[in-house]
């Protein structure tokens, strides 16, 4: 089978994409695959994961979007498929939550937790704390839209407590 794109080389990369319920099949040679939509013909788990990030993320943050703690950009995270520090997950939470749901079929941990967590205050309060932390991050990276959203959530929770 010849490549669908250049019609010269042998097609060695075959893939199916489902876009809005429509199945699109493509058969490409290595070079065209690499050029076309950035599909990497060298299969590795990292490539696979970083392709998945593209497929499942709800929105693409701008390329300069960084974890305020270690400086990892969202682009870097997509490329490596790995976090740079313990704060990345909070910084990229909106983008990766759908991916986590897709990998695990869940989005909330159940099971063991570290010792220091048992000293934490009541559950609702720690939820507010998390939101406050996210708010700080949002302000730091000047994502005001998200900051406003978080502020509303925090207010709602505070009201509920009062």
């Amino acid at each position, binding site marked *: 089978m010849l490549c669908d794109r250049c019609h010269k080389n042998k097609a060695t990369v075959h893939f199916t994409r489902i876009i809005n319920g429509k199945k699109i099949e493509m058969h490409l040679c290595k070079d065209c695959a690499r050029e076309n939509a950035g599909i990497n013909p060298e299969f590795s788990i990292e490539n696979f994961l970083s392709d998945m990030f593209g497929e499942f993320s709800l929105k693409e943050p701008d390329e300069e979007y960084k974890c305020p703690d270690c400086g990892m950009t969202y682009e870097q995270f997509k490329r*490596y*498929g790995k976090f*740079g520090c*313990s704060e990345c997950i909070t910084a990229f939470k909106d983008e990766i939550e759908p991916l986590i749901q897709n990998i695990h079929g*869940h989005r909330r*941990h159940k099971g*063991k937790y570290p*010792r*220091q*967590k048992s000293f934490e205050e009541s559950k609702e309060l720690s939820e507010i704390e998390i939101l406050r932390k996210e708010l700080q991050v949002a302000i730091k990276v000047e994502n005001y839209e998200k900051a406003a959203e978080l502020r509303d959530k925090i207010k709602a929770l505070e009201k509920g407590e009062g």
Partner: protein
Amino acid sequence: MIKWIDESGIEKDIVVSSRIRYARNLKNHKFPIFLDKKESEEIYKEISEIIKSNDIYGKKFSHFKTSNIPNLEKKMLIERHIISPELIKNQGISGFIMSNDEKISIMINEEDHLRLQILSSGLNLKECLKKADELDSILDEKLEYAYHKQFGYITACPTNLGTGIRASSMIHLPGLVMTGRLERLLNTISKFGISVRGVYGEGSKSLGNLFQISNQTTLGNDENTIVEKVEKIAMQIVNKEKEARQYLVNENKLEIEDRVHRSYGVLTNAKIISSDEAVKLLSLVKLGVDLDLIKKYKNLNFNKLFVEIQSMNIQFESREELNGRERDVKRAEIIKRRFNEESE
């Protein structure tokens, strides 16, 4: 000698080994992908000190920086499933701590800051989980783990988030392979969130009929639920393997006997043997012993022999680098020696 495979444990004829791995990271350090040498050494020291000063573990462990270990030995430890190739890839920053019986290891600055691993012979996942949990709690007393209220333990890769646990068992399935029943079984298993891969050989092709099953996901179910599921499915596979073996003996006894004895003949008389061929033949001879088609060698530790004949282990035991042909000669000698020791 390979210490951790002692041929004890439940269903040890079919289940070679069990393993529990915990992935953990520290809150106040960059993850390995961004670590520099200085910070990596702080982490190594911090973890190492906790183990050294512990009453239970203190004296039973040896501590290593990966870059200080000779190449041959590193690869030998991979073949024994004690450390991983990724640890060696990170050798500028990585280290490991290993118990003297090789059953417990802590890899430092592999993909995550910490990878705790408990190995055991046979089907023994619950016991492994208990030990992993104990070790983890000891470290937790002194370290500040990276943890997210919603997503659980934070791991470098999102595929390990939550519990950070990987429960796996290595299973010997010649009966299912020979009866052609394996593929269908594997399709069913994958629907339960369990993944299966061949232990030896490339890609999906498995040499020696050895397969590793493990949980696919780590978030949303607690540790006990995950381990119980893997153990239950492993038991199901073991039962199916037993049925397949029974079927072979009932329906194709002569053919099976023929294959087993041919394998035995070649394996014990070869002068030069590659690791691929040896693994293939060993699997069939082991089946023959399990099914009582070969009356001797009841005490021969086949599970250990599978590891012992891997290239690096051969070189490590003979304390020298050997070329391919020299290894194949040595391998044939080792096999012959092991069989002779047991027939006496």
